[in-house]
């Protein structure tokens, strides 16, 4: 059984429908990338899963229909969403941000261990644990956002445009750490990424969205071989 299963999901903001019935599934420990042009519905797909947008259709997580649960409930079920634009608590310190991530957990000792793990994963944060998130650089904020999401000990991480607005080298650093996180914890991931090179370095499978519909699906290596995909997302 797959960990996450979307069946004919639509989503709309107010009057405009953005997703027109998409279906996809993700295996436990798997990682799928979602590619597509601006406005194709990538971000909305993640929002549909975490419950921050109105949807129809079925969204099954671990066999349970979670559609319409709302972000806090889905988070408590084990879905950690790293939103586009980072989504850290600007006034809170780095350490407090991490502790907010662990809000639903009660295993105090393990939390401390996980904080250390995050700081090991992102050594740039180590010296900044006492400063407010707003004082961090863009790359550090992105690292913090990923670390905050990990602190919830999720089974699925939704990663939205983690490289957005970062210098190429910084983006690579962030993705290196996420790759390490995936390999060391076996965390399942659904990754939305403009930078297909980075995405392909992290995921096993790829889904391509166009105007709210799934148009192509396959493994990363299959899609790498497709001319249309190479032209559209890999610059040749």
């Amino acid at each position: 059984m797959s960990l996450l299963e979307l069946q004919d999901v639509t989503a709309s903001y107010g009057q405009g429908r953005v997703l027109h019935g998409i279906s996809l599934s993700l295996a436990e420990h798997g990682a799928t990338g979602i590619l597509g042009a601006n406005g194709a519905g990538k971000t909305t797909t993640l929002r549909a899963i975490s419950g921050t947008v109105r949807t129809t259709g079925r969204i099954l997580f671990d066999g349970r229909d979670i559609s319409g649960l709302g972000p806090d409930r889905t988070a408590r079920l084990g879905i950690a969403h790293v939103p586009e634009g980072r989504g850290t608590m600007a006034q809170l310190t780095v350490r407090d941000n991490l502790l907010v991530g662990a809000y639903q957990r009660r295993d105090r000792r393990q939390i401390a261990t996980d904080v250390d793990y995050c700081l090991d994963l992102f050594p740039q944060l180590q010296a900044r644990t006492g400063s407010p998130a707003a004082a961090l650089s863009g790359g550090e904020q992105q690292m913090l956002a990923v670390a905050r999401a990990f602190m919830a000990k999720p089974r699925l991480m939704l990663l939205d445009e983690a490289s957005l607005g970062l210098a190429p080298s910084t983006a690579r650093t962030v993705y290196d750490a996420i790759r390490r996180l995936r390999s060391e914890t076996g965390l399942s991931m659904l990754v939305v990424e403009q930078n297909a090179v980075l995405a392909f370095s992290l995921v096993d499978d790829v889904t391509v969205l166009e105007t709210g519909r799934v148009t192509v699906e396959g493994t990363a290596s299959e899609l790498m071989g497709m001319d249309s995909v190479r032209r559209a997302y890999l610059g040749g």
Partner: protein
Amino acid sequence: MSYFVQLVVDGLATGSVYGALALAIVLVNRSTGMINFSQGALAVLSTFVAYAVVQAGAPLLLGLLVAVAFAVVLGAFVERVVVRRFEGGDANTAVVATIGLLVLVSGIAGAIWSYDPRPFPSLFPNATLGLGGVFVSVRSIGTTVVIVAVMVLLQLLFRFTKLGLAMRAVADNPSSAALSGLPVSRLLMIGWGIAAGLGAVAGVLVAPQLFISPTMLDFTLVYALAAAILGGLDSPLGAVVAGWFIGVVENLAGAYVDVIGNDLKIAVPFAAMIVILALRPQGLFGRRTVVRV
């Protein structure tokens, strides 16, 4: 010299009144990110509940407890039923909604209890302590002590408890807080509830001096807002210290500077506030946040 000290002591006593309400404003701001103009009106309505309990023959302490319980429920109810509609929307609309609440709640209190101020019993004995020619009422000392205690409790709540951390996170970034599994709507209700409960304490503390009436805290609210902002909006310590600062500066300026006099003394704390905010936009005790893009 004792005249000077007496003026300072009087200013501190008045400042404690400002600080009491400012604490509630800080609490709402820190737990929901909003400014609540109806804070005073909610406090007054709760204080009227205490008044009704006392009128029915019960001791004031019981009245205070009932009022705080009532206020917590009222605050949570108001957040759930009224304020939620405006959270995340246009900030001006949310502020005006709290002004609407202010008018409505004062109107309700006025319809039930009329507008003329009524005497209100004090938690503390009506006595005065004298030391070296300086006099201070037990009531003022009591008020100040309670406010400092509340301030410390709030500081502890925000600094060292999981609830406090969660409330700060929700106020800071509700969407990310929700994505981290925080029960945002419940936390907002809790924030408003606690703030309203705190407002009830403030109301019961200051009612003996101001007399209870629906408009009891209307003008205090302006001072309390000034204190809260001068103190840095997210700092309970700042709110109380700024309240004292305003009370003392006002008194001294009124008494010693003839040009200012008692009519224009209110200008002095405001002028000081503009200068301080120009130098430290985050307020006296607020945390500086440098936003980097």
